């Protein structure tokens, strides 16, 4: 099995799905000739031509709105939003249209659309090229939200997203793009949307996370193992639908939970996870539910000391786990 990077897994999944199904096409800014500003669509324009790898005008609402029309018709559009921060002009199309098309038509229409967007910080991207935007969409029924952390999961989940009959927001952490590499099978496989995965077994403290911070948690867990603290790490992979069973099971393992994400604390998805636990796994708990999240400031600044202060890190996570373990 070849070792490939997180972004290569994106490209590979797109390529394989486009080969498999002629209805799959890509649209977005600079996705064609340029192969994407991160090169996620590199080579696809050459292989599939400009109609199926469409460079659109600089208009996010149009990218999503046009994709919705095409999806309703029966195509399988994969729309790229260049940076997750720039999904905002498309919120109306996503929330009012994609999410509600099936419901409002009593099931007569549907919207098999994937919206891919690189998100997250730690890349000197400053306020508007570093945001996590999942909280904006994580309460909108009709949408699915997938946020993989590894190349293997990227490939399997992106393929599942493209084959899904409903709109899927597929958020890719841009710091993972070239940082995270692993063996990925060359053959076709999918990973079911809505299933979390235990990425490390442990007995003292349960960490629930996704994306880049999942890797930080694994790193912290490794360090803490040397201190004798055993950390259980659950990778949500999919936010919506949330794998409640897996969450509850993971909580039951240790009775102490730390939920981590880079998105701001207040209103972030960790709140939802905590609420589910406080309602459905209350008696498993041996300590208050802790959240370690991006601070409640509008976004991550450019200046290195500020970016560092914003970002979760293995050190900050280890500290929080230690506190919980000692509880």
């Amino acid at each position, binding site marked *: 099995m070849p070792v490939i990077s997180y972004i290569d897994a994106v490209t590979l999944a797109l390529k394989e799905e486009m080969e498999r199904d002629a209805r799959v096409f890509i649209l977005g800014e600079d996705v064609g000739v340029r192969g994407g500003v991160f090169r996620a669509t590199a080579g696809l324009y050459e292989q599939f031509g400009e109609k199926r790898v469409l460079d659109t005008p600089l208009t996010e609402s149009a990218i999503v709105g*046009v994709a919705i029309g095409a999806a309703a018709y029966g195509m399988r559009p994969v729309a790229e939003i260049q940076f997750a921060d720039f999904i905002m002009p498309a919120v109306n199309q996503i929330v009012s249209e994609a999410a509600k098309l*099936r419901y409002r038509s009593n099931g007569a229409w549907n919207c098999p659309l994937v919206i891919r967007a690189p998100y997250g910080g730690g890349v000197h991207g400053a306020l508007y090229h570093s945001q996590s935007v999942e909280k904006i969409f994580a309460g909108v029924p009709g949408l699915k939200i997938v946020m993989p952390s590894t190349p293997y999961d990227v490939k399997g989940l992106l393929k599942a997203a493209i084959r899904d009959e409903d709109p899927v927001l597929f958020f890719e952490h841009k710091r993972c793009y070239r940082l995270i590499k692993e063996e990925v099978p060359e053959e076709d496989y999918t990973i079911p949307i809505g299933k979390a995965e235990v990425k490390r077994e442990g007995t003292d403290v349960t960490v629930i996370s996704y994306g880049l911070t999942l890797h930080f948690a694994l790193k912290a867990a490794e360090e803490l193992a040397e201190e004798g603290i055993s950390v259980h790490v659950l990778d949500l992979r999919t936010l919506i639908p949330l794998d409640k069973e897996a969450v509850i099971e993971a909580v039951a393992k240790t009775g102490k939970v730390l939920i981590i994400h880079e998105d701001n604390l207040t209103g972030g998805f960790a709140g939802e996870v905590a609420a589910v636990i406080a309602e459905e796994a209350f008696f498993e708990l041996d300590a208050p539910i802790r959240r370690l999240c991006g601070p409640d400031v509008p976004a991550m600044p450019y200046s290195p000391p500020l970016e560092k202060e914003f970002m979760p890190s293995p050190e900050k996570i280890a500290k929080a786990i230690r506190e919980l373990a000692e509880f």
Partner: protein
Amino acid sequence: MSEFDFNELDHTELGLTDGQVLEMYRYMLLARKIDERMWLLNRAGKIPFVISCQGQEGIQVGAAFALDKSKDWLCPYYRDLGMVLVFGQTARDNMLAAFAKKDDPNSGGRQMPGHYGDRRYRILSGSSPVTTQVLHAVGIAYAGILEKKDHVVLTSCGEGSSNQGDWHEACNFAGVHNLPVIFMVENNKYAISVPLTKQVAGGDVSARAQGYGFPGVKVDGSNPLAVYKVVKEAAERARRGEGPTLIEAISYRLVPHSSDDDDRTYRTREEVEAARKYDSLIIFKRYLMEKGLLTEEKDQDLLAMVMHEVDEATEYAEKAPYPDPEDLYKHVYA
């Protein structure tokens, strides 16, 4: 007020048979009578909401007749009752929607009336936030290119709605890729209370097409034949691969914005009365009579048939079952 010369057009020269123009008239009448009935039902407390086509039937029926009902697509807006009737919906379909009944083909009673959507007739389901459908139309047109189909997509909205960002993005996208879309703007002079002058800078929607490199046409919406003509030309252009056309059809909203509105707060009764003279139903009736295709008697017969249809539909829909409470939870995901 629209001041176009009606008599310049003759239906036979446009390739329409006598039967077809009578059919157009029947659809206009049907749309009007369904609409009027809904107001009565609303005022009687039987249905909570109405939004009207009244004053715009000539646009809607003229446009729909110019399309190929066997393959073209509609992304209409909430006033387009005339359009969806021509494409295949019935009085019953619309009454089921008005009463929010389970068998409403648009939404199973989930949406307000006027929120059309019907897979049977390639009418894409629409929502309330205005102008979103204009981009969907572009997407359906683009899908047609990918799939090597030759369908045309007509999408419509009000003149106020055409100021939304989505409208600009849609026109630009369709222009860049030369897509088979007809952008119809039904200019009825008001967006709820806000008149054209406070809504559309420059006052001329059709002029905006120049900025997108495709034709923009202004047409008298009180004349269904004039609308038919420009939509026909636009559809032919589109099917030849020559790209989009913008059509601004001038009309007037003859009733309040919706059953929740009171239009006396923002326009005079004199203005509304004056506009009634340009009602496409009156004008088209006069045309058909002048052409010897319609008599007062024949008109009464037609009306009776239409009223029978509306009565039957009302009765049927009123008795039809509501959705079950558990239906609430269906169709969120596949």
